[in-house]
Structures are given as C-alpha cells and as structure tokens.
C-alpha cells in the first residue's frame, strides 16, 4: 500500500460505493485498480469521512495523526 497523504482508507471495510469520490469538493479521491487513491490538494473538509457509510475512510489532521 502506498503512503497516504491525508486520507486513511480501510481496504477491508470499503465496498467501493464511490460516495467519497463524489462528495469530495476538490476531487482529490479516485478509484484506480479497485483502490481509492488520493491526489495532492486535500482541504481537509472531512466530507468523505462523514459520508462514508462503511467507516472506511478517516481524514488525518494537520500533524498527520488520526
């Protein structure tokens, strides 16, 4: 697994419903090769975490901690 920038992603809980990808206001999340990938530019709005029905996404704070 690649190192994460801001968004922690739980591969086992995730069902790939793509809600996080679609709610992201700056579109930094994408599904590639069945994995949620993160690009640069997260504004840490927590929308993906709040909308994830599977508790599969967690956004780290500025210090890079949970």
């Amino acid at each position: 697994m690649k190192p994460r920038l801001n968004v922690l992603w739980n591969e086992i809980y995730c069902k790939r419903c793509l809600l996080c990808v679609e709610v992201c206001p700056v579109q930094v999340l994408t599904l590639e090769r069945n994995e949620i990938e993160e690009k640069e530019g997260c504004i840490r709005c927590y929308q993906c975490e709040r909308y994830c029905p599977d508790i599969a996404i967690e956004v780290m704070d500025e210090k890079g901690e949970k």
Partner: protein
Amino acid sequence: MDRSYKELLKLRRFPHTWCPGCGIGAVLKNVAMVMKELGWNYKNTVAVSGIGCSGRMSGYMNLDALHTPHGRPLTAAEAIKTVRSDLNVMVLSGDGDLASIGGNHLLHTSRRNPDITVFCNDNEIYGLTGGQAGPTTPQGTKTLTSPRGEHHSPLRLGRILTQQAPYFYARTTVYHLNHFKTCIREALLWKGFSFVDIISDCIELNGRRLGFKTAHQMFKWFDERFHIVEGERDQLQEDELGIAKAVVKEVPRPAEKEEVKPEIPMEGLKPFTLEELERFDGQEGRPIYMAYQGKVYDLSASPLFQGEKRMRCHLGGKDLTKDLDIAPHGEDLIFKFPLVGKME
C-alpha cells in the same frame, strides 16, 4: 475529529452486510455518534430491530440488542421500556417492517406513547427480498411487484403520526447530515414516542431501476425532492424535512363530585309498622308502598311494579333495604318517588 463512537459498534463484524452505498450504514454510524455524545452505552441502552436489511442494525451495536420477528420491534421495545424504565430503548428498523407488517403496532404504540425512539430507515422499497413495492413506495415507481408503476399512493407516515398530541415526528435524509444528526439528538432526548423518518437510499435494488448510477446521484435526487424547514412545526408537508412535535398541555383533573344525598326531615312523617306496610301491595287499587332505610316511598308510578310484567324483586309492601344492595341499580332510583312515611 472525534471517533470514539466506534466503541459502540461491533467492528469485529465489519464490513457490514449491506450493499455498497446503502444508507443504512450512515444511519448506524450517525445514531452511534449521537449516542456517544449523549453518553449512552450498553449499561443504559437497548436497541431493538425488526426484519429486513435495516433489521441487522441492532446486531452491529455494542449493546444488548433484540432482533424481533417481522414487524414487531415496537411492541418489544414498549414491553422492555415498561419493565425497565431505567433503560433507554430505541428501535432501528425500516419502512416495510414498521409501516406495513407492523402498521398496527405503529398506530397503537404511538397511541400509548411509551418513551422510546424509533429510527425508520425509509428507503421506499423492500430491499432484502430484492426490490418489491413497499408501503412508502411513491406512486408510479416501477418495482418487481409493480412492473408498470405502483398503482397506489404511499402511506404518509408524517400525517398518520401527527394526528393527535403528544407526538414527535422528524423527517430527514441521509444526505442532509447536520439536519440528520439534529433530528437524532432531539428524538433521543424526547420524552415519549419519537419517530425519525430517515429518507435513505437503496441504490442497488431501487436506485438502479430508477436510473441512478451511484448512491451520490440518489442523494442529489433527495436534495431536489426535499428542503429543510426550520423552527417549531406542527405538521410537515410531503416535501419538507424537519421536526413536527406537539405536547399535551396538562389539564387539571376536575375535582370529583361529592354525592349529595337528599336530606329529608323524619319529623311529621306518618309512622308505619311492617304489618301496615304489607297492606299496601298494589292489589285491589291500593297504592304500592315500600320501605327503604327507615323511610316509606310510594312506588305506584313505577312502570316496573305494574301488571304481569313486574320484575322478580319488585313486590309491593316490603322493606327493600337489603334487596337494593344486590340490585343492579343504585338507590337513587328510589329517591325519585314521593316519600309518604317512616317505619316504626
């Protein structure tokens, strides 16, 4: 971000059983969040579920949870609350379970107003069985059991549950998250029967047939269909999200009426002996007299003492004090008749 709500969920059973994008996961998560904020845990809370996709919710909570037969979570919750008033009882179920097979229980449990909170995952479809029309499916929707569009108009839970005070009915969606959490919190804190109608998405078995490709597209559809209304409301229109509530104003009980028995002076009344009384038995044109508690009444006018049809006990010229104790009527019937004397 506070993630301590996770201790209320049985994470060892995750990922949960629902389809990708299903709204039930959001209901579970947000209810757990508000519960955590309120300090509710397994020692003071019980969750009750029915059957269906949403019925699995209670099983993912770190609580003593009940998974009842189809349609019965409300009755079960009420019974638990009755026996254990110290417990917080909440029902996590769906629209088919609560409004269709459990419709009768919904009417009567809300009428009896126990202090329970109901979260209804209202996805307008029977999801677990593959997508049949449910009680809240909008008219015209194509489903497996309404292949040319649902014929009947849906059950309007908002109207049914706001018929008579006290009531608490909130409508929200899994998309309007802040509003959703406010509704959960208010409902959990409401004393009495509170019902949260959560418009939720069933993307796999309803949304795709409706033409949506992802759960997010359904969320946008909810945003088009509904708008949030603020403030205190008595009723909600069908396109409104908000909270409708009403309490009963305590009406002071009317003071119980004291029975006033007629006080009749005993002086100056004609005295009768029992032998004399017996002569007045209604035969041969004589009047009918009867004694009651030392007083003699003229019962000639009573229809029960006339002719062949007179009833068993209604014979003239007797002391009726004892008979009246076992009579199906009260003594007030006697006071209507004229007083003619007293017993020796």
